[in-house]
């Protein structure tokens, strides 16, 4: 198995032409980043989100439905935008790997969609942010309803 691992490492590394450079990220306040993200969605700060979402951004809801950056911002700025009365994250954990970080958090949502259907829920969320041109940008989100405490 060690031989296999070595071979795989060698073969896969051969495809990459550039050595990765893990950039240290001193002073990044991941909790503040997470909260700013959610506050902007709650308050409709679309200018910030336009900048903060990478072009590659994808949002995956708990039902597997996915939205691109264009699609999600279109919803937030359109007539069918949801009303978010409460949107907050707790237990934010950051897993930092140089120029990418995975954040996990517990997000509480209270609100409703444009038709009045409740969007209330507790979610455990997987967030991916990447460092591009010196700035951290969101590139992916996967939401899952938190059933960890339910029988």
């Amino acid at each position, binding site marked *: 198995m060690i031989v296999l691992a070595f071979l795989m490492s060698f073969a896969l590394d051969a495809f990459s032409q550039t050595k990765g450079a893990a950039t240290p990220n001193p002073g990044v306040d991941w909790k503040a980043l997470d909260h700013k993200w959610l506050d902007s969605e709650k308050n409709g700060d679309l200018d910030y989100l336009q900048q903060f979402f990478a072009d590659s951004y994808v949002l995956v809801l708990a039902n597997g439905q996915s939205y691109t950056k264009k699609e999600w911002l279109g919803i937030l700025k359109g007539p069918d935008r949801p009303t978010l009365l409460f949107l907050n994250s707790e237990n934010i954990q950051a897993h930092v790997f140089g120029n990418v970080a995975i954040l996990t958090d517990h997000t509480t949502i209270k609100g409703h969609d444009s038709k009045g259907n409740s969007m209330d829920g507790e979610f455990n969320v997987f967030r991916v942010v990447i460092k591009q041109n010196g700035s951290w940008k969101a590139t*992916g989100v996967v939401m899952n309803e938190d059933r960890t405490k339910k029988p």
Partner: protein
Amino acid sequence: MTRTYGLAGTMIFIIASAAAALGQVPKKAGSPADDVAATAAIMDHIWLDAAHNRDTGTLEWLFADDFVEVHPGGFIVNKQEQIDQIMDPQRTLDELHPDDIHVLYASPDVAVLTDITTIKGVSGGVRYDGPQRVIRVFVKQQGRWRAAGAGIARMAAK
């Protein structure tokens, strides 16, 4: 032992085949990002093949130390917990494979992709019976690619 060598041989064959195929990509596209994207797609298959085959050695090699995965139901596991779930004798997986792989982002040291992973069985106390939409993250550490994490959401039946 025979099974282990069989798996190893299969994986080497897959890698060799992929390498041969990938060898043609740079001539057409010539982009390092394309190389990274192709590598990430291969890593996706290696990841799920190893999980399906309970290949602990490959998973240990593949997962970064600070690996994290979020499962349907919101269950969050680290590297050791994920491997323990895969090795759990109670786990039964009849099907596990990725399709529709799309690389969202590729840089010299980061790749983020989505796929639709078909899972049928029970793992970590969670029953799976169909397609899951997944975001997977790969990072390059000390010159080699490793899996940093994944978020998995069950796709509702249409």
